[in-house]
């Protein structure tokens, strides 16, 4: 097994365990921390796939901005383990079962998909590089790019409006 493979499995296991811990943790702040770990693992996967730009952006935007935002909110509300209320036991089981069934169904559906022999390129490939990405982004996808700025504007306006103290 090459280095790549070991890294792949390691990162996968890390991601899965962290995800489960996110869901299971009683303390919400712990959940946030585990989620950040998930993001790191996924960024690791991106680097393996040579999607450099996305790896960095993932870290900056998700782990950096979004998770910090979550932590702000948590601190604002002063939430910790003893304020967490418990859901109805049956609903919890139902939820887990539903999620598990979804997993099973999707896996079963896709295991016979005709993609077995496709490989994902790792460690090489130029499409992940910032240079190429930027060129394509500003040439072909210029309009969506501009629209996304409008989206941010509207989001900011929305947040301010919602957050106003009447």
């Amino acid at each position, binding site marked *: 097994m090459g280095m790549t493979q070991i890294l792949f499995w390691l990162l996968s296991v890390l991601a899965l365990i962290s995800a489960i811990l996110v869901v299971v943790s009683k303390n919400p702040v712990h959940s946030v921390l585990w989620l950040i770990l998930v993001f790191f693992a996924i960024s690791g996967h991106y680097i393996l796939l040579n999607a450099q730009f996305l790896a960095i952006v993932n870290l900056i935007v998700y782990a950096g901005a979004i998770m910090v935002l979550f932590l702000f909110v948590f601190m604002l509300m002063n939430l910790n383990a003893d304020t967490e209320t418990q859901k109805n036991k049956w*609903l919890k089981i139902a939820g887990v079962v*539903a999620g598990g069934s*979804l997993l099973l169904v999707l896996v079963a*559906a896709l295991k016979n998909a005709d993609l077995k022999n496709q490989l994902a390129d790792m460690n090489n490939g130029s499409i992940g590089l910032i240079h190429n990405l930027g060129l394509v982004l500003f040439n072909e996808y210029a309009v969506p790019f501009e629209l996304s700025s409008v989206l941010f504007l509207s989001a900011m306006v929305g947040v301010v409006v919602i957050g106003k103290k009447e």
Partner: protein
Amino acid sequence: MNSINLVWLVPVLPLAGFLINGLFRNSMSKSFSGIIGSLTILAAFVLSLLIFGQVRQEGFRPVVVTLFDFISAGKLQIPFAFQVDQLSSLFLLIITGVGFLIHVYSTSYMKEEEGPHFARYFAYLNLFVFFMLLLVLGANYVILFIGWEGVGLCSYLLIGYWFKNMDYGNAAKKAFIMNRIGDLGFLIAIFVLINQFGSVSFGEIFPAATHTPIPVLTAITLLLFVGATGKSAQIPLYTWLPDAMAGPTPVSALIHAATMVTAGIYMIARSNILYTLTPVTGTVVAVIGLATALLAATIALKQNDIKKVLAYSTVSQLGYMFLGLGVGAYTGAVFHVMTHAFFKALLFLGAGSVISAMHHEQDIRKMGGLKKHMPITHLTFLIGCIAIAGIPPFSGFFSKDEILAGAFAKSPVYYIIGVFTALLTAFYMFRLYATTFLGKFRGTDDKAHHLHESPAAVTFPLIVLALLAAGAGFLGIPEVFAKDAHWLEHFLSPVFEASTQLQATGGQPFDKGMELALMGVSVAVALIGTIWAVTKFSRKPELEEATGFGKVLANKWYVDEFYNAVIVRPLDLLSKFFGFIEKYVIDWIVNGIGRLVQYGSRQIRLLQSGQVGAYVLLMVVGILVLFLVQLFVKK
């Protein structure tokens, strides 16, 4: 000018009269309504005369005037067509002619009614004439049936004309329901006709009848006859006619004497080839006709209401007509229809004149001696009685005799019973005459002061009808008196041609002597009955209640009570039973479904907990199901 092409106008004119009188009845004066009502019939009569003039030319072939396609379903074509031939043009004249006289009479008889009701009467009467004309003009059984049903409807409307009286309403319902029972037979006959011949038109059925299996024809003719028993008041569906006397007297004259009740006769005369081919049905028709004639005559012997006597007399005479049809004497039956229309309408109108002079008293025991107060009514009534008794040279003799001769040719038993019934006829009619007009007046003094002859609008139709009742017999002078003098037989021969040919191969002709002897017997019998009745009742009228066998007759042989017990009560119980089922079983089920839905919805409502978490769970489950179905079930 080909007036036959305008034949559609003949029924349309009374229809227009109906619409005008019906729609504008609140704003027309009484005289205007009466004029509109009568004029339309007069115009129709004139047109019928023109048509008759064309039809009676030598060698006239039936003409079918098609107005429009009525029903067109696959291979079945039923056009709205009129057939103008000798039979229909004769009936046209009778209906419009007698109808016109009765309309004129009604303008005086009904004058006590208020404006809108007066107009309503004329509207109904015109509508009736429209339907009756449709009946006799129809070129196929369906148009005939439309007219058939229509006259039944108008009969109901007119019998129950004074609708505020519940008894009259019940009489109207009885008439309509009994008619409908007969109509079911008629309808089934039409279905069998369509099944067998693929058509209902006369022109297509009658030529093909000779090639049809006899059992099918027997079924058709029997079913048609069932319809006729309902409409023309034969056993077992005759009990509505005496009750129908609840309607105004001119209505009784027009509908229940001259026209509607003869619809059955017309229908069978029109289908004569079918009946000639099925001797079994012929026997049934003759026997029932004869039995009805006898039964009704016995009941009439003991009735004390002037109109009821005439009603039973009508039933009896209709029985004679069916006897004629059953033995194959088609011309005789149609001849009797004509003469009966004249003298029976005359008798009813005369009775109406008496009733209105007596301020609506109808019991003959309270009358008497009206001869000197109402001379014209008396004379015309007498002429009518002589005619119906069958005394020559008035018309009843010729037509009744032709039927009896035909009956004798089939079987002497028919003849003997027929002659006995003729005796009874003469007897009860002259009992009626003597009790009403002869002797002393037995009513109150108050009424005696008001007795006077009726106005001209009443006496004029009486006189015309009396002349017709007296002289119409000469249209049908039998062979025995003069060769080829039977104008009616000659006129109607194309209609009955096929039947006559078939019959000619059968029986034997009788000799002149025999025929004269038969005639002599019937005249003698009629005279005996007449003189006996007149002498008995002019001296001592029958005033006391009937006893013994007479009581049975006076109570109409308890037939109504029998029907009530055997048919009406069980049906009532059956409907109560079904009502019970409806209420407790069916309603319970239906309401139960409602309760079930409510319960179910209450349970399902709990799903709407308002909790977002539950909704998301359901969403995921839904997606799961979709995936499962899409990926695994639909391969």
